[in-house]
């Protein structure tokens, strides 16, 4: 019995002294302020860090309300900039719940590794942070714009990603994706882009205000999540527009849903909602190197002229039109990335998994090989549902 008790105490003691710190440091939850969004810009040699932290304020009725505060700091590194914030914040600012890292266009052009390496290595950060590039605007201005909008700070961007998933013109990239891509020299990085666009409703209201003399509460600019920023190593190289981004998303299997419009045999517009898309990349090591991309797409007819005779031939025709539409979109996107020598679709990875020995011979020159790679695209469409009330058999 005594031996057993001694053994237990020995285990406990060993556990306490070996786990790193005998008495762990206390960080009571009420003494912390969480950074929700971090914006990174360049000001010459310095890094400008813009952060949004949560605050708990007491309202007049005595209830606690959660708000947000914006801080801007400058430093040689992200760490130094963040530390300088401690001089005037009430509570300890922590990275635990950081959700978005927004990188300004200018900062991205100078290389993102110096900033993101800090987030990868810092113990308070998580690899689940999502990356965004601000196009045509500094990260600071974008963060200010986000804060000025109604609703939760990070929820505004959350809803952008949720809604953009329906168009297929963007997708989420996390810090982990960045770290994995940077580990593979043959792959290139892409990060979703947010821009500010004019709000047409607000402009119209301004015109009306001039006549009626009433003020408008509409925002003059809106956030738009559209397209990818493509990187050569860690340097921002170019931006892809929304349609090309969707072409890329077809190939990298990041497309949940989207809508396309094709014309039927009578020139009428038909809206097709893509509900499922699966892709397979088949690399071929035979000289000259080539690859075949096969995309299988399932879609529904969601809008068309009801008096149309929706028969088998009609649907086959629409499927062919859809094949051509998607194939064209993918090929256009491939043309852009091959011209820029940026393998953002994981083509190198497909060759690696096909034959690692042959891959070792070509991986050093992969960027040039990728630029000249002959890629054939084959799309197979399947229209599942017509929603036709007049011709239910065609459903």
């Amino acid at each position, binding site marked *: 019995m005594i031996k057993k008790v001694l053994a237990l105490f020995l285990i406990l003691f060993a556990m306490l002294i070996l786990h790193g710190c005998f008495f762990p440091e206390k960080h009571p*939850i009420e003494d912390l302020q969480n950074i929700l969004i971090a914006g990174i810009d360049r000001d010459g040699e310095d890094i400008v860090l813009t952060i949004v932290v949560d605050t708990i304020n007491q309202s007049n009725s005595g209830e606690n309300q959660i708000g947000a505060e914006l801080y801007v700091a400058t430093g040689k590194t992200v760490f130094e900039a963040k530390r300088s914030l401690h001089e005037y914040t009430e509570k300890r600012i922590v990275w*635990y719940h950081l959700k978005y890292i927004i990188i300004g266009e200018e900062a991205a052009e100078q290389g993102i590794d110096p900033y993101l390496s800090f987030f990868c290595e810092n113990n308070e950060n998580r690899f689940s942070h999502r990356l965004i590039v601000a196009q045509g605007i500094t990260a600071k201005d974008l963060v200010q714009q986000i804060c000025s909008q109604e609703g939760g700070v990070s929820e505004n961007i959350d809803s952008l990603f949720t809604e953009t998933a329906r168009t297929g013109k963007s997708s989420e990239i996390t810090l982990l994706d960045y770290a994995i891509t940077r580990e593979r020299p043959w792959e290139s990085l892409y990060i979703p882009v947010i821009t500010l666009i004019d709000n047409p409703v607000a402009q119209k209201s301004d015109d009306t205000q001039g006549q009626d003399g009433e003020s408008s509460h509409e925002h003059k600019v809106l956030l738009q999540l559209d397209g990818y920023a493509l990187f050569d190593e860690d340097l921002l190289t170019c931006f892809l527009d929304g349609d090309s981004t969707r072409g890329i998303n077809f190939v990298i299997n990041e497309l949940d849903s989207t809508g396309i419009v094709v014309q039927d045999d009578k020139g009428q517009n038909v809206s097709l909602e893509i509900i499922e898309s699966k892709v397979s990349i088949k690399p071929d090591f035979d000289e000259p190197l080539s690859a075949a991309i096969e995309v299988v797409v399932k879609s529904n007819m969601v809008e068309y002229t009801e008096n149309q005779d929706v028969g088998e031939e009609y649907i086959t025709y629409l499927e062919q039109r859809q094949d051509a539409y998607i194939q064209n979109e993918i090929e256009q996107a491939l043309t852009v990335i091959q011209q820029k020598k940026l393998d953002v679709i994981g083509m190198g990875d497909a060759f690696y998994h096909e034959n690692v020995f042959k891959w070792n011979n070509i991986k050093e020159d992969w960027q040039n090989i990728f630029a000249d790679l002959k890629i054939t695209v084959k799309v197979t469409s399947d229209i599942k549902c017509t929603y036709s009330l007049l011709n239910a058999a065609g459903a």
Partner: protein
Amino acid sequence: MKKGDYDNTQNTHGRDALISGSLTSDNIKKLFSESGDIIYRGFLIKNRADLKMTIIYVDGMVNTKIIDDNIICPLSASHWYDQCATLAQAYALSLNGALDVSSLKSTKSTEEAVGAILAGKTILVFDTLKSAIIVDTIGFEKRSITPATEESTYRSSKDSFVETLRVNTATLRKKIKSHHLVLEETVVGKQSHTRLCIAYMKNICNDTFVDIIKKRLDAIDQDKALSISDIYSNVVKKKYTLFPTAVITEKPEACCMSLLEGKIAIIIDELPYSLVFPAVFGDFFQSSCDYGHNYIVASFFRILRYICFTLAIFLPGFFVSVTVFHPEMIPYKLAMSIASSRTGTPFSMYIEVLLMSLTFFILIQASLQISRTIGGAISIVGGLVLGEAAITAGIVSPAVIVVVATASICSMAIPNKEINSVLWLFQLICLVFSSVFGLIGIIITLLILFFSLAKLNPLGVPYIAPYGLKGPLQLEDSFIRFPQNLIKKRPFYLDPKNKRRKR
């Protein structure tokens, strides 16, 4: 030596001499000279001066109707005694059927006669023969069988044990009508002379258990056996453990189920409980109500009890750990909700949780110590008024109340009261360790818990059985419950003589 001590010793020696002396009514009177409840009635059989005897019994413990109708009436009126020439003939006649009683025996031992008087029997002392007849006239007031009050009785029999041993043994006999059911009796307690009954199934129960229990009961050297702990602590022999190693039940149904599994029960006279040995950890998560439910529902509830057990021990400690040491583990919205609820509270998180937990334990103790009518009021005052007032006054945060209340409710979901007390102690241990070491404190508590469980082996049976043993993982009626027709074997860890249930 003081004078009083000397007198007491002399008095004790005198009584010992009387006990070992000849069996006469005078000796018995001297033994009980200071007791007013002993009735002595001199009696002349058939009113003959040569047939003198004395009837002795304890007032209140006997059925006087039996004495009047079945003893005194035959002694005074039966024609059998007309032909008696001597007292010896009358004595023999009484033993051989002249008295209208079902159970009697003769004795020449004063000690046996005194024991019989104290057990509620009547003795007929024949002074000149230095002999007595012991007649079973036990008939004191006893509580009738009522529904169990401490254990739930959902879709199971509602009867419970009472304070009378014979009623309890009869209840067991009524439920298990098998000649294999053995009810061995013994007496424990040098002063209290408490009767015990050891119940087991001769064809199922492992003989080793019976031998160990008998040996330990025989070895009991104490003056009383008036409470559960008097017997429990002597049979269990484990002084340094928090966990109970016997199931204490007031339900004969639960007791019978255990007997049929191959366990052994001790029923103590004057206590409405039975102690079932050996108990393993899983037994405390089972309830006889489980067998009233569908097997899927019953399995769900059993799993839920294990979850509740875990939550009750670790939830407050885990809450302190993550909010004080590891706030990064909490989802953002929950973290903000907790942080905003903490605004303005004066104490640190672990002091708050500790205070609220202690308040809960105090409430439990208060409601146990007072009568049931006021107990409800205590719950209302404690739960509603105190909790609400503490939040309004800003002494504690609502999140802490929610955590402590959840842990408390979880602890109540365990059907066994013994485990409840252990659980509360481990909750405090976990809380203290977590307050100092964070999540490492949780691991320390977990290790202590596993160590405490794994080192126990009541009557040689591993306490964590059937888990972690070499034998088959018998899940039929343990962590979950199979349909009744699939529960075919008795627990292997009890090593029963008859391993199949249907034999």
